[in-house]
C-alpha cells in the first residue's frame, strides 16, 4: 500500500504533536525544579539552583533511593529466576492446564494494583499475622515482576526454536551443559531486558507498595508522595523527579544497545 504524500505528512505531523504533548509535562517539571516560586507559577518569576542544592542534601530522599534500590534488586533477582523457569516450562512443554498457568502469570499485572495490594496486605497482616516490612514489599514486587521476565524470555525462546538444544543433546551434552552453553547465551539479552523492566517496574511501583510496606519502609515513590503536598518540599520533589527522568534514559539506552531490536524493551 503506497500512502499518498498528504497522508504521510499528516501522520508525521500527528506523531510530532503526540510526542510534543508527551514531553511537555516533563519539560514543565524540569523548569519547575529551577522555579523560584514554590507554588509553581507559570511562567516562572525567576530561576534558581536552590532546590537542587537542597535535594542533594535531603537525607530522606537519599535513604528512600537506597531502600528502593534494595527492593528492586531483590525482587528483580527473584523474578529473573522464577520467570525464566516458568517461560521455559510453558514454551518447551505441553501439559494440561497450560493456559491457566499462563493466565496465572499475567494476572498480577492484569488485575489492578490495588487488588494485588489489598490481597497481599490482607494475607500478610490478617491471615499470617506478619509485621509489614521491607521483606513483604519484596515479596509483593517479585510477584508482579515475574511477568516481565516471563514475557521477554518467552518471546526469545519462541524465536529461537528448539533446534540448537536438540542438536546439543544429540551430540551428548547433558541437560545442564546444554542450558549453560546453548540456551543461556541466547537468552542473555532477553534476561537483561526483562530484568531492567522488572527493576523499573518495582522502582516505580506505588500502589502495591503502600499496601505492603511497613511504617518504617520508605521507598522513593512513597517518599515523593509523602512530600508532594508539603509546600516547602514540593520543589525538592521536582528536583528528584528530574533526576529520575534523566536516570530513566540509561536503562533504555542499555536495553537498546544490547538487543538492537525493539520488542526486547517491552
Amino acid at each position, binding site marked *: *500500500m*503506497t500512502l499518498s504524500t498528504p497522508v*504521510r505528512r499528516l*501522520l508525521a505531523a500527528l*506523531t510530532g504533536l503526540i*510526542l510534543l504533548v*508527551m514531553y*511537555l*509535562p*516533563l519539560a*514543565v*517539571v524540569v523548569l*519547575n525544579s529551577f522555579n523560584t516560586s514554590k*507554588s*509553581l507559577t*507559570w511562567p516562572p518569576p525567576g530561576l534558581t539552583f536552590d532546590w537542587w542544592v537542597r535535594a542533594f542534601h535531603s537525607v530522606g530522599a537519599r535513604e528512600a533511593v537506597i531502600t528502593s534500590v534494595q527492593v528492586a534488586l531483590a525482587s528483580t533477582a527473584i523474578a529473573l529466576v*522464577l520467570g525464566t*523457569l*516458568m517461560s*521455559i*516450562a510453558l514454551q518447551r*512443554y505441553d*501439559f494440561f492446564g497450560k493456559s491457566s*498457568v499462563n*493466565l*496465572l*502469570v499475567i494476572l498480577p499485572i*492484569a*488485575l*489492578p*494494583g*490495588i*487488588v494485588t495490594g*489489598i*490481597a*497481599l496486605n*490482607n*494475607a500478610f*497482616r*490478617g491471615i499470617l499475622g506478619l509485621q509489614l516490612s521491607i521483606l513483604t514489599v519484596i515479596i509483593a514486587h517479585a*510477584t508482579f515482576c*515475574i*511477568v516481565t521476565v516471563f*514475557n521477554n524470555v518467552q518471546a526469545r525462546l519462541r524465536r529461537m526454536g528448539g533446534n540448537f538444544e536438540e542438536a546439543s543433546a544429540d551430540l551428548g551434552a*547433558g541437560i*545442564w551443559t546444554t542450558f549453560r552453553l546453548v540456551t543461556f547465551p541466547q537468552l542473555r539479552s532477553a534476561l537483561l531486558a526483562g530484568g531492567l523492566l522488572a527493576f*523499573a517496574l518495582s522502582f516505580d511501583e506505588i*500502589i502495591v507498595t*503502600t499496601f505492603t510496606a511497613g511504617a518504617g519502609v520508605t521507598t522513593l*515513590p512513597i517518599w515523593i*508522595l509523602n512530600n*508532594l503536598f508539603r509546600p516547602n518540599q514540593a520543589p525538592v520533589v521536582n528536583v528528584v*523527579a528530574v533526576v529520575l527522568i534523566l536516570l*530513566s*534514559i540509561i536503562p*533504555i539506552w542499555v536495553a*537498546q544497545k544490547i538487543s538492537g531490536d*525493539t520488542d526486547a*524493551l*517491552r
Partner: protein
Amino acid sequence: MPIDTARAAVSPPRETVARRVSSTLSARPRTRLGLLLSAPLAWLVLIYVVALAALLVSALWTVDSFTGEIDRGLTFANIKEITTESLYRTVTLRTLGVAALVTILDIMIALPIAFYMAKVASKRTQRFLVIAVLTPLWASYLVKAFAWRSVLSDNGIFQWAAGYLGLGTPGYGLVAVVMTQAYIWLPYVILPIFAGLERVPNSLLDASGDLGASTWQTMRTIVLPLLTPAIIAGSIFSFSLTLGDYITVNIVGGANQMLGNLVYTNVGAANNLPLAAAIALIPIVIMIGYLTAVRRTGALENL
C-alpha cells in the same frame, strides 16, 4: 598440594552423579517439567492465589464497630452493602466511565503514532521514536501525575496557554483525571499496537492497494482486523491500571472518588479490612469478565 589431590580423588564420582541426574532427567520430560514449574508455580499459588482466595473470604467477615476487632463469622453483609448502597454504584460507574474513556482516548492516540512508527518511518527514525515513546514510560508514575497537577494548576502552563484562546484550565476534577491517566498509560498502549503493526506483513498492504483498495479501505478491512488482539492487549493495561488507581485521583481529581479511594480509606482510616476486601471484588469481577471476554481474540499472548 593435599587439597588438590583430595579434589581430584572426589571429582569423578561427583561427575557421574551429575551425569546420572542429567540422563535420568532427559529420559523423563514430565519430571523435568515438574522441576521447572514447581518453584514459580508454588510462589504464584502460595502467595498470590491464596491471597486472592483469602480476600474473597475476608469480604465475608465483618468488623465490630465498637472494638474494631474483626469478626470471622461469615456473612454477606458487606456484599449486600456494596451491591445495594447507591454510593458504590455511583463510584463503580464513575470508575468504569473514566477507565473506558482513558482506554478509548489512548487507542485513538496510539493508532496513528504506532502506524507511523511501524509502517512509515525509516528504520533510523523508528529507533528514535521507540526510544522517545519509551522514555516517559520509565519516568516515574508520580512524576507524571505531579507534572499534570502543575500543568493544570490555576497559575499553570495550561491556564497560561489556554488564556490566549479565551479558555481556562479544567482545574482538578474528573476531566483532569481522564487527561492525566490517558497521558500516563499511553506508552503502555502504543507499544503493543506498534508491535502488532510490525507483524502485519507489508506485502498484504501492497496487495490490497494493488487490487484497488483505497488507503482507508485497506486500514479498515486488512489492518484493523489483524491488529485487534494488539489493541485489546493495550486496552487491558490502560483499563486495568485506571480501574484500580487512587493516587492520580488524589493528586488531580479534586473531591471525586474512585473505587481505589474507597478501598484505600477502608484499609487505612476506617480500619474496615473486610469492607475494603468486598469493594476490591468489584474491579476483580470486572477485570476477570474482561479477560474472559477477550481471551479468544488471542490478546493475552500480545501482552
